[in-house]
């Protein structure tokens, strides 16, 4: 008789103590925390997406990263909100690569500036400008592509080495963001 009750007792205890991991309470807390971070900072999905794209652009200048696995989130403890950026790094770029990318970007900027200044002039001229720009861009792309091809074997080598380490860069900008 006592065994039956012991069994029952343990089952009841087990029922209350089991599945603590993914219980609906934990899911609720986590979902709520995330949604509140966004509510408090007034950052909508579109803005986060924009920020994400620009961050990828800047970081890709210096390191090759796994863009798909990049994780950008707001996290918070109490009143403090932190922007958590978790980026799986594939490999660091060489100095030559960085210089090449910077050069390409500078050219792009220069073209943009030229385009802006020529906007005041007549439509005909503008059409001519854009045509010539298109040509320039094509040329730039071509040169970039050839660069990449040259370095492909190297990339593969470093890939196998560094992926095993699963190197990750984590950037955390902690800032006090008072609720508004």
């Amino acid at each position: 008789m006592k065994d039956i009750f012991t069994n029952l007792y343990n089952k009841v205890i087990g029922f209350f103590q089991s599945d603590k991991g993914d219980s609906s309470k934990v899911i609720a807390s986590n979902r709520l925390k995330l949604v509140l971070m966004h509510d408090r900072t007034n950052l909508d999905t579109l803005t986060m997406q924009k920020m994400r794209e620009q961050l990828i652009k800047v970081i890709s200048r210096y390191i090759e990263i796994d863009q798909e696995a990049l994780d950008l989130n707001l996290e918070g403890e109490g009143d403090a909100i932190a922007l958590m950026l978790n980026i799986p790094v594939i490999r660091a770029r060489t100095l030559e690569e960085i210089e090449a990318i910077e050069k390409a970007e500078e050219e792009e900027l220069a073209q943009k500036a030229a385009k802006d200044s020529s906007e005041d002039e007549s439509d005909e001229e503008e059409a001519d400008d854009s045509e010539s720009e298109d040509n320039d861009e094509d040329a730039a792309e071509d040169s970039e592509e050839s660069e990449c091809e040259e370095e492909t074997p190297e990339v593969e080598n470093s890939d196998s080495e560094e992926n095993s380490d699963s190197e990750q860069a984590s950037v955390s900008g902690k800032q006090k963001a008072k609720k508004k």
Partner: protein
Amino acid sequence: MTGRVIVITSGKGGVGKTTTSANIGTALAKSGSKVVLIDTDIGLRNLDLLLGLENRIVYTLVDVVEERCKLKQALVKDKKNPNLCLLAAAQTRDKTAVTAEQLKEICEELQEDYDFILVDCPAGIEHGFQTAISGASEAIVVTTPEMSAVRDADRIIGLLEAKEEIKSYKLLINRVRPNLIKANDMMSVDDVVDILSCNLIGIIPEDTGIITSTNRGEPIVNDENSMAGKAYKNVALRIQGEEVPFLDIDEPHGFIDKIKKFFGIKAKA
């Protein structure tokens, strides 16, 4: 005398603002303080029902504002407790009938004669909310351990923080169900407090007695045996500055304890 004006608000509807107002008001009055309850939910008034005063209302808040009566004439005395008065909302008008300035003036006038002016706020964050908080210097934010209620409470806390006149705000967690929390199916009090990072003034357990007490038009604090009633009384004591420990409402513990107890009896027998 300068009474304290406390607004009871939540953002989300149906979390128990009006029940909380009625019970805290009654508990404060029972302890000897002079209390006015103001229902600012114009068009959807219910505080009169919870207090069982629906048949006694002659004049409302809107009548006072539109000068059809004096403020004192519109105050309805509670059936049991002469220390408790209700200033009811008009049922036939909408929230725009009273402006923030007008309510503030009424609160200031009442502060001279009463210890506590409790303002029952309508749901939402629009005009009605802005009006309700206008005269208050303290706030009680009512929430339940549900996601939607907590999110709305967070929004309300943000708005209260931005309001200079509100000197302090405290959190009241309503309809807590310990058996669900124990089974990890409901956020606990600690979870909610942690997420909202706000000081707590009360934890009210879910109590079916609330339904019957509402049916009768009698606040549950009048029921000596009710857990929710006790919890509301403790909130009133905390408002008056006393340090009261939070009730242990760990029901499932009791359930397991009951089995243990059952064991004990068995062992003895």
